[in-house]
């Protein structure tokens, strides 16, 4: 039985679960049934996908008599889809495990249980689809299911708004992809992917298709300036769904881009990489800045997703440029970096969202400024969150560092370009990446430090309790994976090479054969990194230092009130808040991402009231791009609406006018 068939069987099972969820949502067995089933199914599909990635997927395409009649629904798993299947199903399995525990706190399960498996099925189907119709159908189905999940808490207005913006943007993206496919498919509707590959479009058409694909996939992945829906929608959903949307669904969007840009849209043209690089770098920078300044834990994570997607697209852009200029070794490196970062981001972003969900259930708070001191109350959650934060901040020896290191290595190869534009653009993008990474570290110091460290800033935070075992198990698993991939990157890179081979036609040298598990993606002399060694050294020296000191110096420890330069203030409000923490960065970079309005209301001398600092942040891009659009539509609607209130005679004059016009046209026809 081929991998395709197995995957489809799994998807069928998921859809069946969706039905079951609709039926048993109210019953007590509903939740364990749905999430347990989803866990099992996605674990199985994970195994299948891993197998397909390792030993190559089914050779031939599986065609079902569904979808477009004369083409049928085509399914195929090649190395690329196999890799993304691994990413999606890994996150799905983790999310399901997490939800087994977390789901207990769900307000109205009947709005979540039916759609959760449907969502998983949608994502899987997109990845295995091998013709435009099936692809778009699954794609929009995925959006629809996730929309329903965003609307699960529909009683809150901003959620409804989030759902609306999300759905409209999603459909916009779908139309863009539809256009892309239409262009590639050409006059005689070659909707099957093989047919598209067989007859690639002409250069000009390919360019348009590429642009459409970038817009369509980008709007789903959350590229600036099409990202506005993402920080609204991702936090609105239940946390395990937020994790999937950020960790998995954005990756499906990236898959769509890779599939069209590298696979279907014909031979590459280096000029096309320029927009990708620019947009990627911009998304990274703007995303991280907004994450650094926002005050809602889950929204911070959503913004940071935008940032990581930006990094991924930078890597993709480099890969594309190298590929177009026949520098395939470098292209392979960049592509590997991109895929690895996709995998890593799926890991730690899901982990972080799980943690945020645990905090939310424990305290009912998402605002950083109401939390604090959680590390003492939820130690395990805190620990895993810390691992996730460290990983996403690209700290060695965790996995985040490996992929960003590879991206930088790829940037360092860019002098090989013969085109001046790229020569100049590449280092600029590289600097942007570096800045983004550094800001990300600052961002997660804040995102972890404010809620988990210090003293509780609210009653809720005071009374927080540790999360349940299953949720913790899910987080623990992901945290462990983050560490493992960070310490043994070589194996991960080798696992990716089939996918890279498929896209680039080359892959980075085999890493497992390197001594001491080092990775040297280009050549040992060019730069190498050894996760194991670094980890070992750190652990060794840290433990050595502590033992030596405890042995030969003092190990005594005394608890006492904080010193705080001599005059400590017991009120927890004297601690640094999220806003005050990000104030320096806001001063320096704030205007890049937001329209920042700080209003300080200082009591005049002698007044006894407290001083206030009011801070308003509004998204520049929303103001510049979307507000005008909305206004135009509204105005036009108002103007045209007059036509609803004409009198019969006036309507008749319209008809009459139409007739006369047509007659005149007829009379003046050549």
């Amino acid at each position, binding site marked *: 039985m081929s991998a395709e068939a197995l995957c489809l069987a799994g998807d069928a099972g998921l859809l069946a679960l969706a039905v079951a969820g609709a039926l048993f949502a109210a019953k007590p067995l509903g939740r364990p049934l749905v999430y347990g089933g989803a866990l099992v199914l996605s674990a199985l599909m994970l195994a299948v996908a891993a197998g397909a990635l390792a030993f190559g997927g089914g050779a031939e395409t599986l065609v079902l008599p569904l979808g477009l009649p004369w083409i049928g629904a085509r399914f195929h798993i090649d190395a690329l889809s196999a890799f993304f299947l691994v990413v999606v199903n890994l996150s799905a399995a983790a999310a399901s495990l997490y939800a087994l525990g977390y789901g207990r706190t769900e307000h109205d399960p009947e709005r979540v249980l039916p759609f959760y498996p449907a969502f998983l099925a949608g994502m899987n189907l997109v990845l295995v689809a091998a013709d435009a119709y099936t692809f778009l159908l699954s794609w929009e189905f995925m959006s629809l299911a996730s929309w329903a999940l965003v609307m699960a808490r529909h009683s809150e207005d901003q959620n409804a708004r989030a759902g609306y913006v999300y759905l409209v943007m999603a459909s916009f993206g779908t139309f863009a992809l539809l256009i892309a496919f239409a262009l590639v498919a050409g006059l005689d509707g070659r909707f099957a992917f093989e047919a598209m590959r067989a007859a690639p479009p002409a250069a000009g058409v390919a360019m348009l298709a590429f642009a459409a694909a970038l817009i369509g996939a980008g709007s789903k992945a959350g590229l600036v300036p099409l990202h506005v829906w993402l920080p609204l929608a991702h936090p609105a959903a239940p946390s395990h769904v937020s994790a999937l949307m950020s960790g998995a669904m954005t990756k499906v969007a990236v898959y769509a881009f890779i599939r069209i840009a590298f696979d279907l849209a014909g031979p590459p043209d280096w000029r096309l990489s320029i927009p990708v690089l620019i947009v990627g770098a911009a998304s990274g920078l703007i995303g991280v800045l907004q994450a650094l300044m926002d005050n809602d834990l889950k929204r911070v994570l959503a913004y940071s997703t935008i940032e990581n997607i930006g990094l991924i697209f930078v890597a993709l852009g480099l890969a594309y440029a190298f590929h177009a200029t026949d520098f395939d070794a470098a292209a392979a490196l960049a592509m590997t970096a991109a895929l690895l970062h996709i995998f890593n981001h799926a890991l730690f972003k899901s982990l972080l969202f799980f943690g945020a969900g645990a905090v939310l259930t424990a305290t009912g708070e998402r605002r950083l400024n109401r939390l604090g001191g959680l590390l003492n109350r939820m130690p395990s959650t805190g620990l895993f969150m810390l691992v996730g934060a460290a990983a996403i901040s690209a700290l060695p020896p965790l996995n985040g560092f490996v992929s960003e290191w590879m991206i930088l290595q790829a940037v360092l190869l860019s002098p090989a370009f013969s085109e001046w534009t790229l020569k100049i653009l590449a280092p600029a993008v590289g600097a942007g990446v570096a800045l983004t990474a550094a800001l990300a570290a600052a961002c997660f110091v804040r995102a972890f430090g404010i809620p988990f460290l210090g003293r509780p800033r609210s009653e809720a935070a005071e009374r927080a309790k540790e999360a349940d075992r299953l949720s913790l198990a899910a987080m623990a698993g992901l945290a462990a994976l983050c560490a493992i991939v960070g310490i043994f990157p070589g194996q991960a890179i080798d696992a990716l090479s089939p996918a890279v081979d498929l896209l680039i036609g080359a892959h980075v040298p085999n890493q497992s054969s390197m001594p001491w598990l080092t990775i040297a993606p280009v050549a040992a002399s060019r730069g190498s990194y050894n996760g194991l060694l670094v980890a070992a050294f750190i652990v060794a020296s840290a433990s050595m230092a502590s033992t030596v000191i405890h042995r030969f110096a003092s190990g005594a420890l005394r608890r006492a009130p904080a010193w705080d330069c001599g005059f400590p203030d017991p009120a927890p409000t004297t601690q640094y808040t999220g806003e005050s923490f990000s104030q320096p960065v806001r001063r320096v970079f704030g205007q890049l991402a937001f329209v920042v309005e700080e209003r300080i209301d200082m009591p005049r001398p002698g007044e006894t009231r407290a001083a206030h600092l009011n801070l308003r942040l509004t998204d520049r891009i929303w103001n510049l791009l979307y507000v005008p659009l909305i206004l135009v539509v509204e105005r036009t609607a108002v103007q045209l609406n007059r036509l609803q209130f004409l*009198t019969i*005679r006036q309507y*008749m004059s319209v008809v*009459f006018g139409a007739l*006369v016009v047509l*007659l005149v046209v*007829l*009379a003046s026809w050549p």
Partner: protein
Amino acid sequence: MRGLAFDVAHLLAGGLVLMSFLLLYQTRLYALLNTFALQAVVLSLSVAWQAYVQGADHLYVTAVIAFAFKAIVIPIALHRIIIELGIDRDVENVVGVGPTMLAGLALVALSEVVMLRIAGGADVLAREDLAFALSVVLLGLLMMVVRRNAVSMVVGFMSLENGLILAGAGAKGMPLVVEVSVAFSVLVALVVIGVFLFRISERFESIDAEALDSFRERGR
């Protein structure tokens, strides 16, 4: 003989167009009705002539219907309505008579142009008839558009229909003309009844006039 047939038909059809212009020109309701009755007479004459020329007897029926219904029944009914609703006064035009006439002329010119493009396939007589019929139709529409008054709108509609009948009669050996004219008479009757029932005293608008505005703002 051929020539004569052609000339008479031409004359009558032209007369029909002329009548339409007169209708546009009238500003008093009674005069309007009388003119319309006159047009109906002319119509029935021309239809009858067509019947004679084509030797199509069923057209005589059409002619009779046209005469009885349009020249007598409807005008009388409308008279009654006018008295009933007490709207015996000037007709309000949306645009003045002068511009209306000019527009009418333009329309006639237009229909001529359109028709002249037709290759000689259809025979000349039919073609001329057609040109006039089209003009009558357009003028009828124009009347419906520029007149505010319900009665004059009905009249406009009927003169439009006259154009149709003319065309139908002109089309050699076209079946169903009778049925069609009957169907149309029914239609017109319904319109008239509607006007009468709903007391559309002033203008078609009045049905959806001020009374409804509030509801409208809420409504749609």
